[in-house]
């Protein structure tokens, strides 16, 4: 196990595309979070109100406990940057023939999958930890009177974000292994996530069946929080059922990955 971790770290340590995409991911998350803060402040200074009722400066976007829900929701949109790297990682192993050479040198196909799953978990964990510390810092600087109870409340969205990222990246791994070509795999991932599944979802009228679609169920882990500031009701918790659904998907994806690699001539 330790060996497989080391192998994957050796592969990414000096990989330019890994570092470019990792920095991009973090930079864009920071940019989005901080720009939201500035935007609200400027609205407030101009004396604008939302629905003629609410002063934008008074919205506790960045205060405990709301911050956890808000930043994880926003950061979840940027999961695709890490997914791009996962796809590049697996498709380049195929095009460089290094997947085949790894097997010839003594990895089993299962070992190879485990090492790639480790990459997925590493990316998801790093992003989650980054978001967690960012949340703590911004939360403590924005909350006038932070109390432990508020800091902890809603912090369940942090592990939910980890789960969401992990399952999406496993999905990207499956697409990459299935399609083999980097460009085509990236295209299919975006096409499915942004167009194909939304169209399917549009045709389904029963809400709970809609929630069984893979991307929809992943996105369901963290619901849109902002409408609550317009005094509408929001699902402000992570539903255990949603976690079960995405976990089943993760297991299915991994099983497909295993079957694909086992049957394939390299």
């Amino acid at each position, binding site marked *: 196990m330790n*060996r497989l971790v*080391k*192998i994957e770290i*050796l*592969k990414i*340590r*000096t*990989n*330019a595309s890994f570092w470019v995409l990792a920095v991009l991911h973090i930079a864009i998350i920071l940019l989005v979070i901080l720009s939201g803060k500035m935007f609200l402040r400027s609205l407030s200074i101009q004396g604008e109100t939302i629905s003629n009722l609410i002063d934008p400066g008074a919205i506790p976007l960045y205060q405990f406990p709301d911050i956890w829900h808000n930043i994880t929701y926003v950061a979840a949109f940027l999961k695709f940057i890490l997914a791009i790297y996962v796809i590049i990682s697996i498709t380049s192993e195929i095009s*460089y*023939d*290094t997947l*085949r*050479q*790894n*097997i*010839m*040198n*003594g*990895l*089993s196909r299962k*070992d190879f999958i485990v090492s790639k799953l480790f990459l997925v978990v590493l990316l998801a964990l790093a992003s989650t930890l980054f978001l967690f510390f960012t949340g703590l810092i911004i939360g403590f600087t924005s909350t006038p009177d932070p109390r432990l109870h508020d800091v902890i409340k809603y912090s369940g969205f942090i592990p939910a974000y980890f789960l969401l990222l992990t399952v999406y990246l496993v999905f990207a791994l499956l697409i990459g292994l299935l399609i083999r070509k980097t460009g085509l795999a990236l295209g299919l991932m975006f096409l499915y996530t942004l167009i194909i599944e939304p169209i399917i979802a549009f045709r389904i009228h029963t809400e709970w069946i809609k929630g069984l679609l893979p991307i929809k169920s992943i996105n369901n882990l963290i619901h849109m929080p902002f409408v609550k500031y317009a005094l509408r009701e929001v699902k402000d918790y992570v539903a255990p059922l949603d976690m079960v659904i995405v976990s089943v998907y993760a297991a299915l994806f991994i099983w497909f990955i295993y079957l694909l690699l086992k*049957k394939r*001539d*390299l």
Partner: protein
Amino acid sequence: MSLDNINHVVTTSNLTKHYGRIRAVDELTFAIPAGSVFGLLGPNGSGKTTTLGMLLDVINPTSGSYSWFGNFSKKENRQKIGSILESPAFYPYLSAVDNLQIIAEIKGIGYDNISEVLKITGLYERRHSTYRTFSLGMKQRLALASALLCDPLVMILDEPTNGLDPRGIAEIRELIRTIAQQGKTIILASHLLDEVQKVCTHFAVLNRGKLMYSGLVNEVSGAEQRVELSADNTGELILLLEKFPGKRKLESAGEKIVITLDGSIPVSDLSRFVYQHGIVVTHLVSLKRSLESQFLEILNEQV
């Protein structure tokens, strides 16, 4: 499996691979003796790489089986085999050292041998350059370094001299000999017959996925031999040679006559025979029978 496994590094039994209707490898049964330098010959597309791919578990056989070192467990066996299949495969953005470190981790060994194998293959000076900056010859040598890295029991080399200059080819040939002397088994797939004849002890010929021949390289040159002669009176010489006891075939090529003999007869017998019958030869050359002529013969027999 019989006791034979002790003396063979790998045995196959009816190993078969179909791609649709094409039989890339067809019911291959053979064994590779431990300590041999085994040449796998065949024209392009005869199934050499497919066969090696199956032995290395990267291609799933349609049917049949194989066994390394008398045991079937695959992953641990491959850790003890150094292999190159077709072209070298490395991470282009990593240095030579980083690439070898990954292989060392896969093989479950330390990094101690890395400098050593880079020196043997003449890449030590460029060890920190990324792989993508290497010339084809250097890539080929890094592949060889990676195959040597784990101090392997068996080395599988598929066209190891592809793309090398004459000096590189000679170096690799020398390296193969040195490695073979250490008692390691080498499996060499090639279509360069000259190469196989120079380094191999055993060879097998594949054509269209079928095993055509398998035997010792020495036997090829030992079964028959050809001698070229000429004399002042060619007609008389031909008449005389027709009566030589060990004769198999007689051909005349202009002034020169080529006689094919049993491999067991010393050429000196022929010389003495001719002389005792009062003919003085002006020219007598023992033609070494090449693997190439044997190879072409084996292939022609099938057509």
